[in-house]
């Protein structure tokens, strides 16, 4: 877990400088604060709800990689695994508001919830209406019935996509929030971690895990999962993940879903496809149709090794929004 970096306390600043240098046509900072990023070329006259996200660093392409055409309008970037400040969120909010309200869409972590809450009040003072939707897809992070306590992980991707498309099509703030909430409500994720990662300023792993162990249900900051077991095969791992997902959100045969197999950082793409192979076999075996499958790194934990599987149960409306075009420099075209 060696890092290619300069000073640990400059990790986020230099990363943001690199991002702005690399993608000046797509992303820009506002208010002289590198942590406050918005899409380039906003048409302020357009009748469109704006969408703002935010969260800690260390999860690229999350969160800032979801700002772009067909997606979100702005992002407030925190330090590694730490919330951005309410002021930063409010600043991004002011920069992207077109007068039709702003959707706050972020992961369900208390630091973020509280800072977005405070930012809402600040926005209120400036006359900007905000509505909150929080991603809470991690089915392993709290029991059924306590969904509001669950963490948001890779599955927020589907909510971003649906929200961005709904806003693009001109839905009003309530409409965009409704679609986004539906996407969140119909998404479940379970992750598995095989090795820890190191916060640059801390310098040592956040947890330890034996050479032949894995943790099922672990969060993307190394939060405690459901069980620590001997390293399973890829197929057994998927079976355990899907078991949790499908128990929590039963999916009847004949349904259509989209699936995201997400790498946490060090796990190679080859292995994600080996995992997907099993996901496909099991879901198809249940008479479920898969579409718009996504495999790659969408929400990482720096150099952590492991993966997550997210499933969203689609209806026609969500299928439509997921299909809409979107782009981001953090998802480079070949």
């Amino acid at each position, binding site marked *: 877990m060696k890092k290619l970096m300069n000073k640990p306390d400059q990790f986020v600043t230099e990363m943001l400088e690199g991002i702005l240098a690399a993608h000046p046509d797509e992303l820009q900072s506002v208010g002289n604060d590198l942590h406050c990023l918005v899409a380039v070329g906003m048409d302020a006259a357009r009748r469109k709800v704006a969408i703002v996200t935010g969260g800690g660093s260390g999860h690229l392409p999350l969160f800032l990689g979801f700002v772009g055409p067909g997606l979100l309008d702005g992002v407030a970037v*925190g330090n590694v*695994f*730490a*919330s*951005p*400040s*309410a*002021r*930063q969120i409010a600043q991004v909010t002011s920069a992207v508001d077109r007068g039709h309200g702003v959707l706050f869409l972020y992961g369900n*972590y*208390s*630091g973020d*919830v*509280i*800072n977005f*809450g*405070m930012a809402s009040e600040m926005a209120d003072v400036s006359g900007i209406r905000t509505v909150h939707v929080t991603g809470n897809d991690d089915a392993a*992070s*709290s029991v059924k019935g306590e969904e509001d*306590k669950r963490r948001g992980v890779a599955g927020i991707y589907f909510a971003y996509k649906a929200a961005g498309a709904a806003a693009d099509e001109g839905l009003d703030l309530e409409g965009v929030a409704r679609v986004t909430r539906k996407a969140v409500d119909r998404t479940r994720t379970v992750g598995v971690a095989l090795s820890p990662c190191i916060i640059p300023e801390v310098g040592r792993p*956040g947890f330890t895990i034996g050479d032949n162990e894995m943790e099922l249900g672990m*969060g993307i*900051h190394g*939060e*405690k999962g459901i069980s620590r077991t001997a390293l399973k095969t890829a197929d057994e791992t998927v079976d355990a993940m899907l078991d949790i997902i499908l128990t929590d959100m039963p999916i009847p045969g004949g349904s259509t879903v989209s699936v995201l197999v997400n790498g946490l950082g060090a796990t190679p793409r080859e292995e994600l496809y080996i995992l997907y192979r099993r996901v496909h076999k099991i879901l198809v075996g249940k008479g479920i149709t898969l579409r718009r499958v996504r495999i790659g790194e969408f929400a990482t934990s720096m150099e952590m090794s492991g993966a997550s599987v997210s499933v969203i149960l689609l209806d026609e409306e969500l299928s439509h929004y997921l299909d809409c075009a979107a782009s981001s420099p953090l998802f480079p075209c070949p």
Partner: protein
Amino acid sequence: MDLCRNDVIGVFDAMSRSVTTGKDLLTSLDADLGDGDLGLTMVNGFYAICQFMARDDAPADTAQLLMQAGFTMAETVPSTMGTLVSTGIIRAGKAAPVRGDIDAAAGLEMFRAAVEGIAVRSKAKRGEKTLLDALYPALEAWEAALSTGGDIAACMDAASRAADLAVVATAGLLSVHGKAAVFGDQSIGKPDPGASAIAMIMRGAREWFLRSVTG
């Protein structure tokens, strides 16, 4: 005694010293039930406030001073506790008397505004093992001390002692919010880090009064 603007600065200096002394304890409490950053965020947050208050161009008005201090802390340490404590400070500033010093009654209004602001912001309720489980007992102790004629120093003394006792009681509670929530039953037996931080902050304030009244 009532508090003037410069006394408020003195109180914050004392709070800052208190969390600096207790940094490792907060860190280890949060490492047990969370991510271990609480010592750092409290120390850095109060340090930023003190730096801000010491500036030549810091507001002359106590209300403004407190509000801007709160925003400074929020900007510096946007963690859960950083933001909630900042929220409390901002609310206290908003509730500060327009003119004149802060007496025990004004202090109660400010403290109540702070606690209510934190409760609204956090959406947590009493008994859910959060900083509120130190704040509510302290607020009630202040109110009781005031009703029996205590001055602001006596109110603070009562509030701080109540907070200390309350922290011990949080050990019996189940964590349902924040990073501690995943520990479920395993959280029982351990005091809440956020409540501990509140008690530590109030102890700093109490010590300032002790020094100022006696010294």
